[in-house]
C-alpha cells in the first residue's frame, strides 16, 4: 500500500500546487514551503495568517469560535451568554470536550449549559440590546453566577448592538463582573483573531482583580493549556508532585478566580504560543512576571520543560524532586516505548491542525521512531512556523489591524522585579532563554513540506501522492482521510481519548498510534474475491 516512490521536497510541492489553476496556484504558492534550516537557525518564510480564498474548502472556523469556544470555553463558573441567533451557541455547546473538575458538588459548573439570546428577526430590525439586557437579568436571577461573559456574533456588529455598554450597565446593576467580547465571526481571518479578542478582554476585565496569591512555593501560571481530554488534570498532578504551585491555568479546568489572580505567579509558562503569547507579554510588562515557552507534549519535552522551570527557581530541593519525578516517570514511559517503537519505526505522519499541536505532536511521533513528512497549522502566524525571530518583520495587513492591540504599562504598585539582574545574567550565561519560541520549522527535517491553512484539495493530493501511515487533523477531515484507508487521528478532540500531555499522556499516545497504525482492520477493506490472486471462477449456476 505504501508509496515507496512518493515525491519529496520541491517535487511534492509542485505536484500539490499543480492541482490548482494558475491564478490560484500563484496565490497559494507562498503558503507551501519546502523546509530547510540554515546553520543560523533561519528557515524560509511562510505566508500565514492570511485570508482563505472564498470557495476553498478550508479547515478554518471563525473569530467567535476562537473566542467563545477555545479561550472561554474551558472555564466552568462563568455564564457564557452568546448574543445572536441560536446556531452559534448551539455549535459551541460541549463539542470541544474541555474537561473540568469542580472540587465539590456545590461548586459552580456551567459548562454543560448553552446560553443564547436566540435573536429573532425583530431583534435584527429593531436592535437586540433590550433582549440582551433582559437575558443577562434572567441568567442572573436563575443562577447568581460570579461572572457573565457576553459574546457577539456576526449580526451584532452589523446592527450596532453595543455589548460593552450593556455589560457595563448590568455590571453596575447586578454587582457581579460582566464583560463583553466583540468577536463577530467575520473578524480576522480565522479563530486566531478570537483568541486575541478573548485574551485582551480577560486582561482588561479579569486578570489582576485579586492580589491574593495562593499558598505555596514556586508559583507558576500555565498559559495556553485547554484541558482537552484531561490534559490539564495530568499536568496539575505532575506539577504538584514536582513541588510547583499552580496559580492559574488559562484556561483548562479553570475558574474565574484563577484568572483574577493569574498575575501573582512568579513565572508564566506558555504551552500554546499562538493563542496566548501576547498575554504572557502583557502580564510581564504590567506585573513583571517573566515567561518562557514549554511543551508538555512528548516525554522528552516534558522532562526538558520541567527542568527548565526548576532551573528558573534555582532551588536544590525543587531540582532534586523534579529529577526524581522525571526518573520515575521516564522509566514507565520507556518501558512502553521499547515495546511500541519497533512496531512504528519508519512510519510516516502528517499533521495539519491548530496553532501549536501540529508542532508539539511531532515530538511524540519521533519518540516512537516515526517521521513527520508534512505539517502545517490551521490558524497560526509566521512566528509559530519560523520562530519569534521574525516577529519584527511580520507585516500587519488590514485583517490584523482590526484586532485591538492593548497598550500596556507597568503597574506602578503591583509590578514586581521577580528576577534580579544578577540572576538574569547568571541564567543568560547558560543560554537560558526567556520570551522564546523557535517555531515549528527549525525542528522539522529539511525537505519536509510545510503547508499553511491546508484545504481539502491539498489534503487529497498529499494522501494520494505520499500515502502517509497516519494523518492528524480535525473532525471535518477525519472521514475523508479514512475513506482512503489511512487512519486519521483528531488532534482537536483526541477522538474522545487522551489525555496525551505529560508522561502518562505520552504512554497513552504511543498506544493509540500503535493501535491505529498496526491494526489489521484496514487490510479487510478489499473483499477476498477482488484480491488479484483470487482463483478464477470454477463453477457456474445453471442459467435459466
Amino acid at each position, binding site marked *: 500500500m505504501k508509496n515507496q516512490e512518493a515525491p519529496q521536497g520541491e517535487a511534492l510541492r509542485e505536484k500539490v500546487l499543480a492541482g490548482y489553476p494558475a491564478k490560484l496556484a500563484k496565490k497559494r504558492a507562498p503558503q507551501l514551503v519546502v523546509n530547510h534550516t540554515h546553520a543560523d537557525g533561519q528557515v524560509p518564510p511562510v505566508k500565514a495568517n492570511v485570508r482563505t*480564498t472564498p470557495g476553498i474548502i478550508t479547515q478554518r472556523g471563525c473569530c467567535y469560535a476562537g473566542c467563545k469556544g477555545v479561550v472561554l470555553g474551558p472555564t466552568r463558573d462563568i455564564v457564557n451568554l452568546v448574543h445572536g441567533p441560536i*446556531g452559534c451557541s448551539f455549535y459551541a455547546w460541549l463539542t470541544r470536550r474541555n474537561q473540568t473538575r469542580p472540587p465539590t458538588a456545590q461548586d459552580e459548573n456551567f459548562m454543560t449549559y448553552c446560553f443564547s439570546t436566540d435573536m429573532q428577526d425583530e431583534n435584527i430590525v429593531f436592535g437586540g440590546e433590550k433582549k440582551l439586557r433582559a437575558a443577562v437579568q434572567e441568567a442572573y436571577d436563575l443562577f447568581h453566577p460570579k461572572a457573565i461573559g457576553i459574546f457577539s456574533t456576526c449580526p451584532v456588529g452589523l446592527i450596532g448592538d453595543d455589548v460593552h455598554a450593556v455589560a457595563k450597565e448590568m455590571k453596575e446593576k447586578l454587582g457581579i463582573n460582566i464583560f463583553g467580547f466583540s468577536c463577530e465571526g467575520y473578524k480576522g481571518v480565522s479563530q486566531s483573531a478570537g483568541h486575541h479578542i478573548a485574551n485582551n478582554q480577560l486582561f482588561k476585565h479579569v486578570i489582576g482583580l485579586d492580589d491574593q496569591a495562593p499558598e505555596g512555593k514556586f508559583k507558576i501560571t500555565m498559559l495556553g493549556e485547554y484541558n482537552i481530554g484531561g490534559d490539564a488534570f495530568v499536568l496539575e498532578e505532575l506539577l504538584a508532585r514536582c513541588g510547583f504551585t499552580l496559580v492559574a491555568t488559562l484556561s483548562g479546568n479553570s475558574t474565574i478566580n484563577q484568572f483574577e489572580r493569574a498575575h501573582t505567579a512568579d513565572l508564566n509558562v506558555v504551552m500554546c504560543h499562538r493563542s496566548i503569547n501576547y498575554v504572557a507579554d502583557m502580564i510581564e510588562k504590567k506585573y513583571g512576571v517573566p515567561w518562557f515557552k514549554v511543551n508538555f507534549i512528548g516525554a522528552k519535552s516534558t522532562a526538558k520543560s520541567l527542568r527548565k522551570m526548576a532551573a528558573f527557581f534555582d532551588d536544590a530541593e525543587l531540582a532534586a524532586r523534579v529529577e526524581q519525578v522525571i526518573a520515575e516517570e521516564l522509566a514507565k514511559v520507556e518501558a512502553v516505548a521499547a515495546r511500541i517503537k519497533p512496531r512504528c519505526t519508519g512510519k510516516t505522519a502528517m499533521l495539519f491542525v491548530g496553532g501549536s499541536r501540529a508542532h508539539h505532536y511531532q515530538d511524540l511521533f519521533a519518540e516512537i521512531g516515526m517521521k513527520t513528512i508534512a505539517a502545517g497549522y490551521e490558524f497560526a502566524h509566521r512566528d509559530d512556523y519560523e520562530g519569534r525571530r521574525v516577529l519584527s518583520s511580520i507585516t500587519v495587513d488590514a485583517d490584523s489591524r482590526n484586532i485591538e492591540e492593548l497598550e500596556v504599562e507597568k503597574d506602578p504598585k503591583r509590578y514586581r522585579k521577580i528576577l534580579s539582574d544578577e540572576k538574569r545574567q547568571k541564567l543568560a550565561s547558560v543560554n537560558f532563554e526567556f520570551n522564546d519560541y523557535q517555531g515549528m520549522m527549525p525542528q522539522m527535517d529539511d525537505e519536509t513540506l510545510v503547508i499553511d491553512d491546508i484545504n481539502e484539495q491539498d489534503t487529497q493530493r498529499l494522501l494520494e501522492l505520499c500515502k502517509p501511515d497516519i494523518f492528524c487533523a480535525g473532525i471535518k477531515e477525519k472521514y475523508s482521510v479514512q475513506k*482512503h484507508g489511512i487512519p486519521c487521528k483528531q488532534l482537536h478532540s483526541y477522538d474522545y481519548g487522551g489525555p496525551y500531555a505529560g508522561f502518562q499522556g505520552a504512554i497513552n499516545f504511543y498506544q493509540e498510534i500503535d493501535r491505529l497504525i498496526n491494526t489489521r482492520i484496514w487490510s479487510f477493506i478489499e473483499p477476498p474475491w477482488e484480491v488479484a490472486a483470487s482463483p478464477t471462477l470454477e463453477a457456474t449456476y445453471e442459467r435459466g
Partner: protein
Amino acid sequence: MALLRHTNQPAVERQALTINPAKTCQPVGALYAALGVHNCLPHSHGSQGCCSYHRSVLTRHYKEPVMAATSSFTEGSSVFGGQSNLLAAIENIFTLYAPDIIAVHTTCLSETIGDDIPQIAAKAQNEGKIPAGKFVIHANTPSYVGSHVTGFANMTKSLVSYFAEKGPAKLRTVNVVPGWVEPADMREIKRIAALMGVEIILFPDTSDVLDAPQIGKHEFYPRGGVTVQALRKTGSSQATIALGPTASGSAALELEKKCEVEATMLELPIGLRATDAFIDALRRIAGVEVPQALKDERGRLMDVITDMHQYFYGKRVALWGDPDQLVSLAGFLADVDMQPVYTVTGTPGRAFEERLTRVLAGRVPGVRMRQGAQADMFLLHQWIKEQAVDLLVGNTYGKYIARDENIPLVRHGFPILDRVGHAYFPSVGYLGGIRMLEKILQALQDKQDRDCPEEAVELVM
C-alpha cells in the same frame, strides 16, 4: 454531583434567555438538504465559522465526510457586501471541485447585509463563471428566523423552484418529499415504494451520500442524491406526498403552484398509524394493491406491540426535537399506551401544538407541550424535576439529563453525536416501528434489570 447542577429551580417564564436549545439555526438544514442532490456542493454564504460548525455537526452525526464551501467573509465583505466573495467562490468551486450544482444558502450575516443571491448568480453567469450545463441555486436561510428545519424546508423548496418543469404529459411517477430524516429512512421509503410497484422521485435523498461504504477510496461526490433530471420530472408527476408538513410542506405546495402537481400532506411515517397513512396514500395515488410482503411487515410490528404491551403501558415519556418527528413519535407512543407527557421543540410555529394535540386525542392526561425560543431542554428538565418520567426520547444532548436523573434515553433525531446506527437502520415504516420499539424496550428493560431488587430480577420478560 450532577452535570446539570444548576437546574434546581421551579420553571419560571423567560422572555429573552434560551438555555440548552431544542433547535439550531437554518443554514445546517439547507446544507443537509443540498447533500441529498447528486453532484451538488453546498455553499455557505457567510463567515467561515458557519460552514465549519455545520460540517462539524453533520460529520459528528454521520461519521462521514461532509463537503461544503464558504464565502469566507472578512470585515471588509461585511461592510461592502459579499458579492465579490461569492463571485470568487463560484469560480473557484467550479474549477476545483467540479460540481454540477452549487447550492448557496445564506446566513444571518449575508441576510443582515442584504446580499441578493440571484443577482450575484446572474452576474456570475454573465461573466462566464458558471460552466455550460451547471447550476447555481440558492435558498434564503436567515438564522434568526425559524430553525434548522426551516432551512431544510427552504432549500428543498428551492429544488422545486429551480428545477421542476411541467412537461407536456403526466408521468407515472409520484414525488415523495421525505422530510429531515436519515439516509436509512430515505432508503426505506424507496424500498417500500418499490415493494408496492410505485415509481417515486424522492427528494432530497441522502442515502448513498451520508452512509457511503468504506472501499478504500474517497468519492468526493458519493453516488447517491437526487439528480437534476429527476428533479425536472417532479413537475410532471402524478402527485406529491409531503412527509412532515414542517420540513416538506413548502416544497410540495411549490410544486402544486408551479406545476399543478397535487400535494398530499402527511405526518412522517414513524410508527404504525402514520405508516398506514403513507402506504394508503401511495396505494390510492398510484392505484396499486398493498403487497403481501408489506402486510407481513405490518403484522410483525403489530405482533411486537401486542406481545410486549405490558412494558409500554402507562410509561411516562419526555421528548424533544423537531416538530414532524415529535408529532409522529408521540402519536406512536400513545398508540402503544405510553404517556408522552412532555414535549418541547425550539422550532417555532403554533401549528405544532395543534398537530400534537390532534394526534394525542386526549389520551395523555396532564400533557405539557411548548414550541419556540424558550421551549428548550432547560424547561423540559425543570418539568421532569417537578414530576419524573420513565423514558427520554431525543438527541444526544439528553444524555446529561439521563445521567443526572437516572432515566433511560432512546436517541432519536438530530444530532446524535455519540452512537451509531441511525444512518443505517430506519425509524420510518413498519420495520422502523419495530426498531423504535426494540430500542424503547431495551432501554426500559435494561434499567429494570439493573435497578430492581435482586429477588425481582426476571429471567423471562
